[in-house]
């Protein structure tokens, strides 16, 4: 590739943390000869993994070229720094790429360098000693042979998850190595399943690595193995790849998965599937060229920009919650109280006990319910034990930590009491008054309310400054978001304690103002409300439910309604209607569904329950799918702008972070505001976009 293109690329990645390719001669055992051992090392510890930007690629290129010039070596081996092999392309410069030519140049540079590892005069060995992702995996794939450490914690091709394809050889080499089915598991299935990773043992079992060794002396044993391969004492035999029907079937299955999950909303996964589909018939040159084109297209795509923004949200912004007070103000939490013994209370008790390792006492007025609540937690601990997630000692400890009490006296030495009782203001106020009577004046009183006012809840207390909203999302063990709500009188110490506890619970905490239904429920209720409104106006429920499919959400609006529960959804919409009658309607039809005692929308065969359908039915003015999508998006754009103006959260980025971590909204929409900007709805509704330039997570 031309020098000017390389220079341009380097200029774009000005702040690249360069991964050096350090070459050193090693004497292989058994008299096999001299090998060049290349160590990939960016000079930082494992918290800053090796990545490849243009300068790093050129350094690797120089190392390979130096080896190519030698006639006295028998092999080249590549390994990583301690705990890390390499985790892929440096994406820091992607934002700066201005045109497709530059994007194409980056893709080509990667290929030009990596492919030399597969085209040297001596065999090459990738010694995958630690985490390997994306371009790191591709370095290994280009090598003639691979060994993997059984201690490798993460090995993945996350490109499709972010909005790219594994386009430095991944989509061509991997299926030709292990077959399309297994390759697509890594290229498509895992990225689309919360970006799942595999471990070293699986890398070997799947046939990606030719040998596996324990971490204690992984490189030494790998080099012994390499020496035997060089000498011909070991012949690597790989099962032949089925390039016939099995390939077709795997590709068709992947197409089906991608379509089912994304409905065409994000281009990258589909592009990756098509590259795999063709990989069996293409030459290396053709395969790599096709990858270059795909990378160039995708690097310029708004979905990638949204994906990288979303990645930064969950990786960076989530770790430094905007508006959180200094953590030195936080109080120590040595015992937790949970008011209530229902399902939510039980989930909370388990989470607190597991993550904080402190006693958790649940209270309920009814002995039977209390016993059931504690028994639920103990049963969950037994499940963890059975799955091997905890050992017997830890299970004993957890069970010992979670107890029940009929009276709130048991809270007297608790520093943090959270209520998860019936969603009614008077009930919650009374509960807090009772708790306040027994706890110290500094103990935090937290509420898991989904829509009630924190300020009002605290109003009758002697110490309202210790009350804080602590809103989890169901299922608690799955959804990372925790909306932390500051009431009018909440003080910094209480808030700091809440954030510190959230961090220990491994939750993504976002600070919200005490506004009706906070962030996620407000927006989901609005969004669902538009869909329900179109139904009551006369649209077929199936049509309305399908209308927002182009967003590629994890579930359709009616499926979400079923998960939340029609009664809860109705309740939240009533709260919001009370607060903002002009923007939030209460669906009379939904009221009918609740009144009829229906708690499921769909029949077990995933068709809409005919009775529910009858209850939802309304007028005679049906809308088209695009019309419904448009009104739903417009409603979102308008509401988010109002929320930002009201100061419900600090920035649009927090809205997106909430939707991604609390509702599972996708990376390719960047939550939602980058998407609203992209399709022009923000501009149309609010007269300006949410993000002036590319969306910024920080």
């Amino acid at each position, binding site marked *: 590739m031309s020098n000017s293109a390389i220079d341009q690329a380097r200029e774009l990645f000005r702040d690249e943390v360069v991964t050096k390719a*350090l070459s050193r001669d090693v*004497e292989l055992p058994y008299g096999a000869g001299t090998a060049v051992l*290349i160590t990939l090392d960016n000079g930082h510890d494992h918290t800053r993994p090796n990545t490849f930007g243009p300068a790093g690629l050129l350094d690797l290129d120089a190392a390979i070229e130096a080896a190519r010039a030698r006639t006295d070596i028998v092999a080249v081996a590549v390994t990583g720094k301690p705990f890390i092999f390499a985790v892929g392309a440096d994406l820091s410069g992607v934002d700066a790429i201005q045109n497709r030519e530059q994007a194409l140049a980056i893709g080509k540079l990667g290929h030009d360098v990596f492919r030399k590892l597969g085209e040297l005069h001596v065999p090459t060995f990738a010694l995958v000693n630690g985490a390997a992702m994306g371009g790191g995996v591709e370095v290994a794939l280009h090598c003639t042979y691979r060994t993997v450490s059984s201690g490798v914690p993460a090995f993945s091709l996350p490109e499709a998850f972010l909005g790219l394809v594994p386009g430095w050889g991944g989509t061509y080499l991997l299926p030709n190595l292990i077959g399309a089915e297994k390759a697509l598991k890594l290229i498509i299935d895992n990225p689309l399943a919360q970006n799942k990773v595999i471990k070293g043992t699986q890398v070997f079992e799947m046939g990606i690595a030719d040998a596996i060794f324990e971490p*204690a*002396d992984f490189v030494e044993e790998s080099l012994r193995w390499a020496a035997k391969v060089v000498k011909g004492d070991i012949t690597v035999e790989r099962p032949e790849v089925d390039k016939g029907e099995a390939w077709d079937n795997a590709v068709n299955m992947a197409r089906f998965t991608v379509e089912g999950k994304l409905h065409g909303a994000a281009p990258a996964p589909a592009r990756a599937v098509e590259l795999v589909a063709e990989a069996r018939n293409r030459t290396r040159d053709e395969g790599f060229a096709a990858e270059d084109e795909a990378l160039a297209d995708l690097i310029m795509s708004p979905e990638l920009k949204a994906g990288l923004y979303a990645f930064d949200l969950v990786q960076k912004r989530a770790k430094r919650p905007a508006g959180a007070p200094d953590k030195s103000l936080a109080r120590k939490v040595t015992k937790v109280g949970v008011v209530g013994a229902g399902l939510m209370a039980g989930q909370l008790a388990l989470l607190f006990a597991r993550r904080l390792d402190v006693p958790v006492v649940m209270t309920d007025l009814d002995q039977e319910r209390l016993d059931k609540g504690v028994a639920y937690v103990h049963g969950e601990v037994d499940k963890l034990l059975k799955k091997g997630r905890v050992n017997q000692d830890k299970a004993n400890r957890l069970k010992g930590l979670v107890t029940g009490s009929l009276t709130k006296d048991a809270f007297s030495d608790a520093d943090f009491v959270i209520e998860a009782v019936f969603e009614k203001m008077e009930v919650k106020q009374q509960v807090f008054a009772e708790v306040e009577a027994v706890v110290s004046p500094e103990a935090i009183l937290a509420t898991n309310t989904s829509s009630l006012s924190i300020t009002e809840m605290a109003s009758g207390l002697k110490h309202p400054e210790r009350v804080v909203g602590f809103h989890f999302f169901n299922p608690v063990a799955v959804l990372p978001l925790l909306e932390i709500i500051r009431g009018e009188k909440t003080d910094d110490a209480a808030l700091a304690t809440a954030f510190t506890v959230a961090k220990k619970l491994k939750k993504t905490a976002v600070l919200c103002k005490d506004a009706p239904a906070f962030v996620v429920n407000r927006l989901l209720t609005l969004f669902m409300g538009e869909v329900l409104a179109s139904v009551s106006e006369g649209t077929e429920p199936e049509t309305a439910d399908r209308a927002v499919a182009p967003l590629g959400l994890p579930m359709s609006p009616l499926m979400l309604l079923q998960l939340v529960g029609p009664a809860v959804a109705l309740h939240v919409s009533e709260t919001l209607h009370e607060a903002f009658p002009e923007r939030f309607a209460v669906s009379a039809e939904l009221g009918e569904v609740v009144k009829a005692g229906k708690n499921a929308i769909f029949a077990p065969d995933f068709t809409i329950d005919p009775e529910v359908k009858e209850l939802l039915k309304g007028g005679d003015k049906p809308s088209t799918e695009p019309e419904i999508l448009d009104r739903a998006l417009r409603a979102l754009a308008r509401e988010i702008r109002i929320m930002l103006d009201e100061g419900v959260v600090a920035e649009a980025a927090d809205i997106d972070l909430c939707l991604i971590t609390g509702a599972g909204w996708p990376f390719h929409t960047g939550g939602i505001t980058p998407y609203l900007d992209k399709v022009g709805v923000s501009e149309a509704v609010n007269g300006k976009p949410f993000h002036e330039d590319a969306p910024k997570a920080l």
Partner: protein
Amino acid sequence: MPRTARDVVFVDGARTPFGKSGKGLYAETRADDLVVRVIRELMRRNPGLPPERIDEVAIAATTQIGDQGLTIGRSAAILAGLPKSVPGYAIDRMCAGALTAVTTAGAGIAFGAYDVVIAGGVEHMGRHPMGEGVDPNPRFLTEKLVDPSALVMGNTAENLHDRYPGITKERADAYAVRSQEKVAKAYADGKIQPDLVEVLVRSAEQGYGLATKDEPPRPGTDMKTLAGLKTPFRAHGNVTPGNAAGLNDGATGAILAAEETAAELGLDARMRLVDFSFAGVEPEVMGVGPVPATEKLLARQGMGMDNIGLIEINEAFAVQVLAFLEHFGIADDDARVNPWGGAIALGHPLASSGVRLMMQLARQFAERPDVRYGITTMCVGMGMGGTVLWENTNYEGGK
């Protein structure tokens, strides 16, 4: 019930290549990782030994802090992936650490408390210079319990020249030249390599490398080169970096077993532990320690030096070897003594060296079925010596 002592055999030994301390091979490699590699190699070379049958892991280190601390025998056992049921401990007798690990753990086998043990030693003198963190009791000096020179090993070597005025610098240098020559020849003949296990070495600047052979040897060393070296411990003295072992990093390990257990598991029994002895001398002439230790041992066994066919003596200093030879009336170039050279060329990572002597003796025994007995002996800081008497299991003379 009367107790019967059991025979103890040396099954196998392995060691890392020795490195030069400071900027050498292992400058950025941890000491415990060296031990781990040795233990894993021993297990790999002896697949008949089920790991859960190991009753003890005794690892010596002189400076037991940092990566040589944390009860190194136990922590290395865990890091090496031995079952958690296998115990371990740390041991220290300065230079004779590994030698003492063998005698102590071996004695436990003879006593019947163990069937199989791993014994070895490590010293990363780069990461842990001699004397790191020590706090000598002031009484040593105020009450003149030891001479002020006793704590500096080089000074004790100079003192030994005073005690044996016949051992000149030239004799010491000549001995050192022979040690280098013998090591070079042994390497060329492939005698040393079988005991080595290659070790991955880290360098932040150069990337990973592989240590495959000893770094300290200086083949081609001659009298002229040695004559020009400085005598850092005494002006116009006798002890130079050329006629002494250097500062080194390395680890060694051995498997010992009850002879009956070795037979049961089909393990090699390369030599038999016959007896051992330790003795103290004035700390300021610590190098003479092997003399009383060996005398004591031979007397107990009713043997003389003429019964000993092979002598592996640690070469902390040439003068200390020569003092031993002079005492026993052995020629400076006697073929029985360190046939493959010694620590002056190979290096002396303090607490690891004892097992190196043993693994070399065991290999020499295999080549010499005519020899029945051999010793491994070392001088020890603070004025001691230790000697172990071994019987060649390949001995054919009795047939």
